């Protein structure tokens, strides 16, 4: 039984609530013997009809694929081996979205007011567009793959935090890439580094970036993460508390997007 304490929440943004749609964010996590930690977060594209399903599927399949690789094989001991593992996870998650397009059931799309697809109509891959961030932490390594926006932040033994996410590169803050893009592997960012005493890790979707990170460098805002990691370390912490925080007035005043935050601490 792993010692990692993990806590996470995905909440619907006020803009989605106003439009009568649900949450397009999703997250999944798992701990494995002996001390492996797997976390995935995904943010479905606002314009995609079935992106909530896309995000949920991508996150879950990524965790399953990661878990499968780690339990079936010797833990990677070099960067290039981790790169293969990460690539496999992304490819498998995307494959799962492709399989979704082959369903031929009549479904109402996630967007209110749009017509239901007939049984004969298949969804296109773009309907499931989603970002995907996946982090794997073992005793010796941290391996992260990221397609699209959002952030991965780690906490070092001295309490300081650092981002494993590339700093904001595009010209526009509102354009990102998706797991469903043809060039998804080329557009993925990989970060592989030695564990080196890292004792906390957080993954978030872009709904929180404005309040959790300092722009334009995209560095973690310490006063945001320190109390949150402390909260996560508390064995009595409840996901509902985290949820309430994400839904709070002061957060929603700054951002009306869906928000996801998963925190993990190794005591």
């Amino acid at each position, binding site marked *: 039984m792993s010692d990692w304490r993990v806590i996470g929440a995905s909440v619907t943004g006020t803009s989605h609530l106003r439009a009568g749609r649900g949450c397009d964010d999703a997250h999944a996590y798992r701990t494995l013997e002996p001390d492996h930690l797997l976390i995935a977060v995904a943010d479905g594209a606002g*314009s995609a009809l079935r992106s909530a399903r896309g995000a949920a599927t991508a996150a879950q399949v990524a965790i399953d694929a990661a878990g499968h690789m780690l339990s079936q094989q010797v833990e990677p001991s070099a960067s290039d081996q981790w790169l293969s593992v990460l690539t496999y996870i992304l490819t498998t998650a995307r494959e799962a979205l492709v399989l979704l397009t082959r369903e031929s059931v009549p479904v109402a799309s996630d967007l209110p007011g749009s017509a239901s697809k007939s049984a004969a109509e298949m969804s296109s891959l773009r309907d499931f567009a989603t970002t995907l961030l996946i982090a794997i932490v073992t005793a010796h390594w941290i391996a992260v793959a990221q397609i699209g926006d959002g952030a991965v932040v780690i906490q070092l033994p001295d309490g300081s935090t650092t981002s494993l996410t590339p700093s904001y590169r595009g010209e526009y803050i509102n354009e990102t890439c998706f797991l469903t893009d043809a060039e998804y592997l080329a557009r993925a960012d990989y970060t592989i580094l030695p564990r080196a005493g890292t004792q906390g890790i957080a993954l978030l979707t*872009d709904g929180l970036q*404005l309040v959790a990170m300092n722009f334009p460098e995209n560095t973690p805002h310490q006063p*945001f993460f320190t*109390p949150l990691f402390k909260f996560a370390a508390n064995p009595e912490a409840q996901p509902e508390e985290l949820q309430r925080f994400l839904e709070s007035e002061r957060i929603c005043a700054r951002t009306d*997007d869906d928000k996801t935050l998963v925190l993990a601490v190794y005591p």
Partner: protein
Amino acid sequence: MSQLDDIGLADNPDPVCPCILLLDTSASMSGTPISALNDGLKVFQQDIQEDDLARRRVEVAVVTFGNGGVQVVRQFDKVSEFKAPTLSSGGNTPMGAAIIEALNLLRERKQALKENGIVYYRPWAFLITDGAPTDNWQAAAERVHSEEQANGLAFFAVGVGEADMNILAQIAVRGPLKLQGLKFTELFRWLSASQKRVSASKPEEKVPLPLPEGWAVV
């Protein structure tokens, strides 16, 4: 008492959503058209200022062409401070020059934002005309095309009344729309709703704008 009461939020400046209005105030707009346009602008102000996030993020500039030639009626500034101008009509239609002016304003604004470390959304340009350009418009069209190609902005055009839709189609790669009658109010409500959508998180290439039914001829 929750441990989560004391969380510090990063103090980033709001991201900016630049929107530039290019409005025809030529002589043919005299009477009901310009009056309806002015009403539409008031509706835009009212509607967009109701939205917290849009108020903080959207920046509007207004360039007119017609009365007084090309006029920059409003430089880029927060839409929270926007007071709908009362435009009057006259003159011919220097649309080409107005487009160039607008693109230059946009370029300068992006530069200023970059220098101040402020992040922004892909800007919108929104042209409304009831006629045809009386100046050289080809150079302006080329600049719009190359800006669109480089993903530098999203350029929309709406034709009113006797507007030359053919020429508009050569300027705006995104298929110009024709206004039903003088439904400026509906048009500006749509524009406000679209800017609210744009300023709220993440639209992508295929922006799910509210459908332009109700004001566009389809």
